[in-house]
């Protein structure tokens, strides 16, 4: 049970002078239940990559296996794949359209052909999972705050009961608390349900804090793949491709340069505080 990408290539504008390779020989294996962060500068191929995973884009060459089945096989039910791999786009609140939040969340499961009872149970469950309070269920989605709207939109995807949830920059434009709330809820969802989660992000601090594994994309290829600690030791290389390390990593380097014996591979505030305390001999 996992997602496997086997030598996946994607070129758009094939056969035209504008032909561009957006993914180049990508090989990845994502086991069940992992929380994966995908980082890369604008145009590095992150969004193209995740759109392959639920069949929105079809690879020019290479194979993708979902739970051992080749998704490009003629017999494979790609429509079903879309409900098994839920994709939450950037600014998903722009896709809310129903008159109230509950009806909006029901839209997905209803389209899966589920009966009314199952649809409503799933919608209710999904709204609870994203932490939206009951009193908002029958409000117009347009009367909610930015963070609430976004959670309603995520609930719409969760109501399809996907096995894999992909979020493309779920916190863009949210205030710090809204950001922490959404990421906290995603983490809780992941630990409680064991769902595989892929988080596309521009925030190095967020991926350092939340994910188990980071995939760094650059020019359509996988540049690094490892734990946050491993990835951010390459901060110079990351800078050269438009990324960075979490700020706390730079702070630790500064401390180290000034003679404090700290472990510069710490990537979160908690880890950094631990190593500074140790360096101070406390």
């Amino acid at each position, binding site marked *: 049970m996992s997602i496997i990408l086997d030598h996946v290539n994607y070129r758009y504008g094939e056969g035209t002078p504008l032909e561009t390779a957006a993914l180049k020989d990508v090989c990845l294996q994502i086991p069940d239940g992992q929380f994966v962060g995908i980082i890369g500068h604008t145009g590095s191929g992150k969004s193209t990559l995740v759109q392959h995973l639920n069949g929105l884009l079809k690879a020019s060459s290479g194979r993708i296996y979902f739970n051992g089945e080749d998704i490009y096989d003629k017999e494979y039910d790609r429509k079903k794949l879309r409900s098994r791999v839920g994709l939450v786009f950037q600014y998903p609140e722009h896709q809310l359209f129903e008159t109230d939040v509950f009806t909006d969340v029901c839209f997905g499961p209803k389209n899966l052909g589920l009966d009314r009872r199952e649809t409503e149970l799933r919608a209710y469950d999904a709204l609870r999972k994203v932490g939206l309070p009951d009193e908002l269920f029958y409000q117009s989605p347009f009367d909610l*705050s930015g963070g609430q709207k976004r959670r309603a939109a995520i609930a719409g995807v969760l109501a399809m009961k996907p096995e894999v949830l992909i979020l493309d920059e779920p916190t863009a434009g949210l205030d710090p608390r809204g950001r922490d709330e959404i990421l906290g809820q995603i983490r809780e969802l992941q630990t409680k349900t064991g769902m595989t989660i892929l988080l596309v992000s521009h925030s190095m601090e967020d991926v350092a804090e939340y994910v188990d594994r980071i995939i760094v994309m650059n020019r359509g290829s996988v540049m690094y793949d490892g734990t946050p600690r491993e990835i951010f030791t390459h901060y110079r290389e990351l800078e050269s491709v438009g990324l960075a390390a979490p700020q706390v990593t730079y*702070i630790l380097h500064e401390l180290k340069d000034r003679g404090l014996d700290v472990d510069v591979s710490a990537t979160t505030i908690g880890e950094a505080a631990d190593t500074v305390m140790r360096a101070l001999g406390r």
Partner: protein
Amino acid sequence: MGIVKASDVVYEYIRRDEEGNVEGITTAIDRVNFDIAPGEFVAIVGHNGSGKSTLAKHINAILNPTEGTVWVDGMDTGDEGSLWDIRQTAGMVFQNPDNQIIGQVVEEDVGFGPENLGIPTKEIWERVEESLRAVGMYEYRKHSPNRLSGGQKQRVSIAGVLAMHPRCIVLDEPTAMLDPSGRREVIRAVRGLNQVEGMTVILITHYMEEIIHADRVFVMDQGKIAMEGTPREIFSQVERLKELRLDVPQATLLAHELKKRGVVLPDGILTGQELADALVGKKRGQG
């Protein structure tokens, strides 16, 4: 009076249901007063829905106050006759660069504003050149905007505003959609405008690291200015900021965490360098 001044500004809007019946009145801005001096760098932060964007829209007369007055370079924004002068004095840059760029070529896009002002062609080109140079995008002048990165596009948007020769530039979350290098580029360009060109800058953002170089920070909450001060004064109140749904730079957060664990450190540490200064002294003091 400074370049932008607000006096007892209130902005209310009426909420209506689908049939158009009045449901209630929301006070988005609630008695706000400020006075921004020419050349100042002011940052406005606040949670989603705190009123910061609504406030920014008052500065170039996209919105007009329900009560009170906003003056831009001495012009009352409620005075329709000065509308174009106000917009030219206070230029605005928004979140999404793709919604702000219209030209097929970078230099055409930047020239669009001054062209609409009826500036002679020769001067338009001079303005385009100086604006693109100011944001470090001159070498891209012949490029197509849709081939640029997010940070580059946003710098072209800023150049487009600069070409109008504003005295003040208001940026509403200009980096929200950008990757780390894009954010760095845009913030560097904005600081350059402020420090080198002496441009008045009003920056709205959710990224606390972007405001540590501001002269003054306003923290908005429920339509009011809840806190005001230098970045150091503001960030020394970590718990208060958390209550207001905000954050502090990671250096400040790390210092706060160390203090909780018993390390004695000064308040208001903003950068890694300041933290290093404080800690290295400590290590030596211990001997």
